[in-house]
């Protein structure tokens, strides 16, 4: 599937490859035959309902739980078995609802994880600074707010300059400013070549920020591609909002009469037009012919949420 969004590694080679991955718990098929290529340097989103299998797939990619069948490789190496330590040293992970140790300070928390990752504890200070927690470095985690804990969790994932980040609902508990700061950091990391796999329930938040998305339902990947690819695949209607004077409503209706338009609704100062994607350019041309009788024109593409429900319903 072509990646049309401009990434620094547009032609990035597959870095994380899942082939025929299944995880069955008795009769429950948590993950049921997933094939996925995540490319080097891309920001990849994984979305789905609760219980769709995202977290299970995440845990299998990290080698935390074994797959019932199938194969997962990071940069050609298996995530479990002999290579696991080398693979883990290249990976940063932020679990959903990260839980850290209340009795440690922020700095001590990072020292602890730095030692486990075989990283110099000297990285702790600058990493705390990067996530905006330098001021709270010597405060105990029990005094941290939920957002601060989340940022500290993100900081531990960044220790050791990982090549790959797995972030499970990373913006939970963050305020809008912190969310913006978080994505700014992700963009910086992407420009440094870091590959990020992210899950989020807040689809509006990630739709403009990720390079590609996979939609999971019932343990399967229903679709994978850029947001635009997915819009085209699911073929949802577009909405035009055409601002015209009230007396020109009929003129709009006439101009579009020969086109494949699903619906035209008149509102106070504008007309709403619904059409299929293939009629989009014809509608724009017809409206352009009306000249300055049209005061304004807005096209609303289906949101990621619309696309998501288009695939999952």
């Amino acid at each position, binding site marked *: 599937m072509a990646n049309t969004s401009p990434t620094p590694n547009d032609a990035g080679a597959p870095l994380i490859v899942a082939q025929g991955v299944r995880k069955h718990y008795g009769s429950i098929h948590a993950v049921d035959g997933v094939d996925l290529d995540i490319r080097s340097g891309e920001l990849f989103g994984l979305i789905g309902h609760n219980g769709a299998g995202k977290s299970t797939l995440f*845990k299998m990619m990290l080698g935390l739980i074994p797959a019932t069948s199938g194969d997962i490789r990071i940069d050609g190496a298996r995530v479990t078995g002999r290579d696991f330590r080398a693979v883990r040293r290249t990976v940063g992970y932020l679990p959903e609802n990260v839980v850290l140790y209340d*009795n440690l300070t922020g700095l001590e928390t990072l020292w602890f994880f730095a030692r*486990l990752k*075989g990283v110099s504890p000297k990285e702790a200070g600058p990493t705390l600074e990067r996530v905006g927690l330098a001021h709270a470095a010597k405060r105990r985690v029990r005094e941290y707010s939920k957002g601060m804990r989340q940022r500290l969790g993100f900081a531990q994932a960044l220790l050791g300059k990982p090549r790959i980040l797995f972030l499970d609902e990373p913006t939970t508990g963050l305020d809008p400013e912190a969310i913006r700061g978080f994505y700014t950091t992700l963009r910086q990391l992407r420009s440094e070549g870091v590959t990020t796999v992210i899950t989020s329930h807040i689809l509006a938040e990630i739709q403009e920020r990720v390079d590609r998305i996979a939609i999971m339902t019932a343990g399967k990947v229903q679709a994978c591609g850029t947001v635009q690819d997915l819009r085209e695949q699911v073929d949802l209607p577009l909405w035009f909002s055409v601002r015209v004077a009230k007396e020109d409503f009929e003129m709009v209706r006439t101009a579009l009469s020969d086109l494949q338009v699903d619906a035209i609704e008149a509102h106070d100062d504008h007309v709403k037009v619904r059409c299929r994607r293939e009629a989009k350019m014809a509608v724009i041309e017809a409206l352009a012919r009306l000249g300055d009788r049209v005061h304004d024109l807005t096209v609303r593409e289906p949101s990621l949420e619309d696309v998501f429900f288009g695939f999952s319903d």
Partner: protein
Amino acid sequence: MEIAQIATIAGKEFWDRIRNRWVLAVALVFTAFALVIAYFGAAQQGSVGFRSIDLTIASLVSLVIYLIPLIALVLGFDAIVGERERGSLDLLLSMPITRLELLLGKYLGLAAALTFSTVAGFGLVAIMLSPRLDLNALYHYFGFMLSSVLLGCAFLSLAVMLSVFAADRTRASGLAIATWFFFVLVFDLLLLGALVVTGGQWGGDALPYLLLANPADVFRILNIFSLDDVRTLYGLATVFPSSLADPWLLGLVMLAWIVLPLGIASWRFRK
């Protein structure tokens, strides 16, 4: 296996117990009990003051046999299940660490905390009593301290095993209490009951070996230095034949009680 990973986990567990004053509290409890027993152990007989090291150790053994298993089980019952229930286990396991390293790190850190408390608590009393003790008595007291450490480590190993098997902390605590009841209260009664009911027909010859199946009994046997005036304090352990009462052999049995539950825990944790 990477020793550095084990040391990192163990270091955190140990310092956590130092910082939250767990080590200090347990050491003080041991010191206080040991002092009370040494000086007031004979109060019921109408006298106070230090009598003999054999009597003191015998009294301490009957106290420690209840206390140390309980403390060890409370210390270790949530080692793994606690991390799992809090939600911090996945993050730990996403590090470049094996499950065995994590388990050993947890165990060794907790064992170090328990050992430190035991040695500091009873060691302080040894220092206070030292003017009244000869070399032989000190040797016996040292043996008592060492066996107490082994007893703690054996029950800690059982606790860590339970913490791997239990589905949640509540069940783990229930299992820990049941384990304490079984080994400390019920086990000897069962053996004794079987012996009495069968009129000594069943278990007579096997009894000494069956005692080895309980680390608390092994601890008791390890501490029989004199049978003359204290045998009533040791209960069933006095039936143990002296040929089997080699401290090295018993030490090995204690070691098995440490290694075996940890081995089972590791097998289960990997699944």
